[in-house]
């Protein structure tokens, strides 16, 4: 096909964004097979969409700004319902008698396991990094580690990631328990000796505490938590929750999760 022949122009973008019907898509593929120019344009558009704009860093919301928003909402409540700030709500609860106090306590107990799940993953990472959490199998062979889980009674599907392209070498795995539930734990060593610990366990993201840092990527929701230098990225795969934990840098951990997460 020569340059005098019609080129695809904006249709390339519709093709890239999956907005063509099947018939038109077949026609476009046929054109691309014979047209280097359109192939080049397509790849340039794809580079912008999938590489350039996906690498933009995300600024954290300054805590003072989050407080400002909360205060603005409190003020809005105050206009329609006096004394509605969180402080006053707490005061109301605290003075509402033993029954309400008991209900509040029950609520706190109800929510504690949520926070504990994130804390437990963070604690596991720290223990592994300090050499206090031993692996059952030390191997860089992913299938071997997966068979360890099958033998160890983990009856949900596990997927030990191959992260060699990202310079993370599999160290091994452990049949673990996370807050009483079976968990497939596997660990990697990355650049500068950084540890990366992954866990998979049956559950739902809704069990986790609310995160103000939620990302959507390729239709998958990622909930991010931070504790000091440690970043934890959770996502859902079917009935299984996956989490990556590392002190390798927040953006790096998020990108690793993006690269390895699979749609349900």
């Amino acid at each position, binding site marked *: 096909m020569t340059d005098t022949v019609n080129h695809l122009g904006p249709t390339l*973008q519709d093709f890239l964004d999956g907005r063509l019907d099947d018939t038109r898509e077949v026609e476009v593929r046929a054109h691309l097979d014979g047209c280097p120019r359109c192939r080049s344009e397509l*790849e340039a558009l794809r580079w912008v969409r999938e*590489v350039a704009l996906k690498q933009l860093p995300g600024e954290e919301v300054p805590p003072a700004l989050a407080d400002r928003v909360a205060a603005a909402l409190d003020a*809005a409540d105050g206009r329609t319902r006096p004394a509605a700030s969180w402080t006053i709500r707490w005061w109301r609860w605290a003075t509402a008698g033993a029954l309400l106090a008991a209900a509040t306590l029950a609520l706190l107990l109800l929510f504690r396991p949520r926070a504990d799940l994130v804390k437990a993953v963070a604690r596991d990472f720290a223990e592994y990094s300090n050499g206090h959490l031993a692996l059952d199998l030390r191997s860089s062979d992913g299938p071997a580690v997966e068979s360890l889980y099958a033998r160890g009674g983990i009856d949900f599907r596990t997927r030990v990631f191959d992260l060699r392209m990202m310079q993370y070498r599999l160290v091994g795995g452990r049949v673990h328990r996370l807050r009483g539930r079976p968990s497939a734990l596997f660990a990697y060593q990355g650049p500068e000796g950084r540890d990366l610990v992954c866990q998979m366990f049956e559950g739902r993201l809704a069990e986790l505490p609310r995160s103000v840092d939620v990302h959507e990527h390729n239709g998958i929701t990622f909930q991010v938590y931070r504790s000091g230098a440690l970043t934890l990225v959770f996502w859902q795969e079917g009935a299984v929750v996956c989490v990556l934990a590392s002190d390798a840098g927040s953006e790096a951990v998020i990108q690793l999760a993006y690269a390895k997460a699979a749609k349900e």
Partner: protein
Amino acid sequence: MPHSDADERRVRFESLALPFMRALYNTALRLTQEPQDAADLMQETFLRAYRTFENFSPGTNCKAWLFTILYSIFVNQYRQAKQRPRVESLEELEQRFHQFAQAPDPASDMTTVDGWGRRWSPEVERALRQLQEDFRAPLLLVDVEELAYEEAASVLGCAVGTVGSRLFRGRKLLFAMLQEYAHEAGYGKGNSRDR
């Protein structure tokens, strides 16, 4: 335990809207290009969303709804005719994009996207800042925040076709501005301008 309708409303709003605070803040930063304006814009967005929470239809995309509010406030209160100096005209940039695709390269086609590393560079942020807002906003909504064309059209208050055409032009312009960077990052068929 929420003990009144107002408490329940607040809890419901926070559980739906707060997870998008970071996305809204980052988009506000890239629209206003001023941290103080971005902070004000985000606060105003949450406040207006909270006051009009009854307008939100459960089951629809809360993120798109919040972005619609944010963009509306941005257009009415923050958008100013800050024409940033551009080293090249839009026409020149588009011409550069097409020259890139047309340039003869007997050795190979362009490297494909698969396998490219992801690494952050301020180049992309800088190029985005130089883009006219008409093109920048669809890129932020569709490519960065991953809204559907239809949702972006609703946010921007324009036709779906307009989103598509601005997106197409915006992607081409951004590539033209970043061509040398892309080449240095290991992408391209080796015909960037420095060769």
